[in-house]
């Protein structure tokens, strides 16, 4: 793990000097700004039961679907396409260090982008002048959910990138995986078949992986360790598969 920090700082640096990062950031903040002002409009029209933060985070999947593939599709696929993976792996560096370095760099940027949406809430707080508009509980819970679930999403993106040398393929694969885990599970959960007596265990498993339920719990202030464990174990699994993905490509090249 000697080179982890070297690779991490190099990757973060490369992300911060690349113009595509700033384009992605502008797009992200524009979309989030529209969502936020939409939420505020709804609140100004009529009184609502939940806090604005809870509604804002309800739409977290929208930026996740386009941000995560954009952030991660490049990391391993591009290195393989250019052939720089060969120079990287012939230096005294292990595959694990390379994958982890790239993973945490992408995760750092993901957090940075989400963190910048904190500015919206600050502006609301500053100009509304009323502490009641800003409920810190759901806000903190929402950001915590973003940080914990982001671990898994970025790991899935890195995994997709380890499978292909084509950035577009990696991006689409990452999108499909994210779609499956966020929307797909919810869709499967609504199927009639699961109400059968024999399907009880499957139903429990699907309920356990329901991302939207996790979000609800987090914003209500309930941090369930089972849910955290779901994301952390999923992350570890995806990263192990990414490392194997890189090494398998060498074995069978």
């Amino acid at each position, binding site marked *: 793990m*000697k*080179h982890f920090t*070297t*690779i991490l700082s*190099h990757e973060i640096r*490369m992300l911060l*000097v*690349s113009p595509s990062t700033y384009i992605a950031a502008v797009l992200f903040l524009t979309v989030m700004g529209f969502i936020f002002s939409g939420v505020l409009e709804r609140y100004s029209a009529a009184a609502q039961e939940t806090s604005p933060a809870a509604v804002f985070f309800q739409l977290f999947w929208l930026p996740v679907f386009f941000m995560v593939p954009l952030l991660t599709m490049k990391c391993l696929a591009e290195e393989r396409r*250019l*052939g*720089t993976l*060969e*120079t*990287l*792996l*012939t*230096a*005294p*560096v*292990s595959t694990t260090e390379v994958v982890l370095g790239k993973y945490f760099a992408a995760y750092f940027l993901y957090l940075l982008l989400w963190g910048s949406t904190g500015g919206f809430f600050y502006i609301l707080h500053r100009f509304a002048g009323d502490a009641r508009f800003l409920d810190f509980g759901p806000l903190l819970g929402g950001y915590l959910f973003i940080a914990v679930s982001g671990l898994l999403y970025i790991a899935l993106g890195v995994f997709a990138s380890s499978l292909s040398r084509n950035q577009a393929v990696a991006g689409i694969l990452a999108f499909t995986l994210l779609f499956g885990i966020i929307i797909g599970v919810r869709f499967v959960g609504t199927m009639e078949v699961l109400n059968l007596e024999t399907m009880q265990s499957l139903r429990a498993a699907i309920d356990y992986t329901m991302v939207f339920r996790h979000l609800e719990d987090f914003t209500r202030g309930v941090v369930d360790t089972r849910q955290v464990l779901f994301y952390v174990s999923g992350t570890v699994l995806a990263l192990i598969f990414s490392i194997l993905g890189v090494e398998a490509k*060498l*074995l*069978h*090249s």
Partner: protein
Amino acid sequence: MTSAETPAIEVRDLVKIYSGHPAVSKISFTVARGEVLGFLGPNGAGKSTTMRILTGYLPATAGEVNVCGVPVASRGDEVKKLIGYMPENNPLPDDMRVAEYLHYRGRLKEITRRKLGPRIDEVLELCDLTRVRHRIIGKLSKGFRQRVGIAEAILAEPPVIIMDEPTIGLDPHQIQIVRDLIASLRGRMTVIISSHILPEIEMTCDRVLIINQGRVVAAGTPADLRREVFGQARYELAIAGELAVALPAALAQIDPTLQIAETGAPDAAGFSKLTLTSTRDDDLGEAVLRVLTAAGSFRVRSLCRIQPTLEDVFLAATRRGWELVDAPAPTTPTPKRTP
């Protein structure tokens, strides 16, 4: 630390099979410390594959590879510290500056921060890159990029340097620089280079290994290879006169093995170009001239000994390699399996 007596590189019966297709079959060779070895071979001969296995990037299917006495298969991490490698086509990140890239690579190669700065300056100076140290790599010309790759390979001063076609795409002036650079490494570091450019290999390398179809078809110094592959001295003679009967007799008088290999058509002045061969290794030129002029019936215009270039050796050796490959494999009795 490994002792200085072990050879820098030891390869024994190396085999690499890509999904059923053998790329390297049973290659064996050793490289002494401080030696410059040239890898020659046509495209797809297995040069790059062998180099990648040496660096530990690709696993071998069978065989044994030791770098400075360290086995690549079981202690790959240590081997990576002993090798500076420049891959084929020299992949570089396009969005970094030259000095920045070298700094990053230096840190990965575990050079301490204090030593790294002066070492980068030194390497930039060696490779004539000081002018472009703050330029972005993606905007450099091919020659500069190639030299950045070489600078990166020698950065950590490893005992072994492996470069896959380092002079490809360079102009003659830059080739000269690279050649001098490799020459300056001789004795201090072991260098393996592969190339298609034969004069290049001939000038820079102490020893040449010719590979074809995944096999070593010839190995030795360029001079050894000439002798081994051709096995005879060749002379070119431009002569006019009675060639059919009298000349062979006169030649036999000089040396019994001296024969006419080829006879060209006479030109306008009546001179024909002949190629003579002899198994005698010492120069027969003076004797030939003396006898032919003394005979009186010949008019000799020129005589010279043909020095086969490495190119001829290469073509002959790879042709020999093809024959070797195409020949039916010697039938060996398969050992009976006992249940």
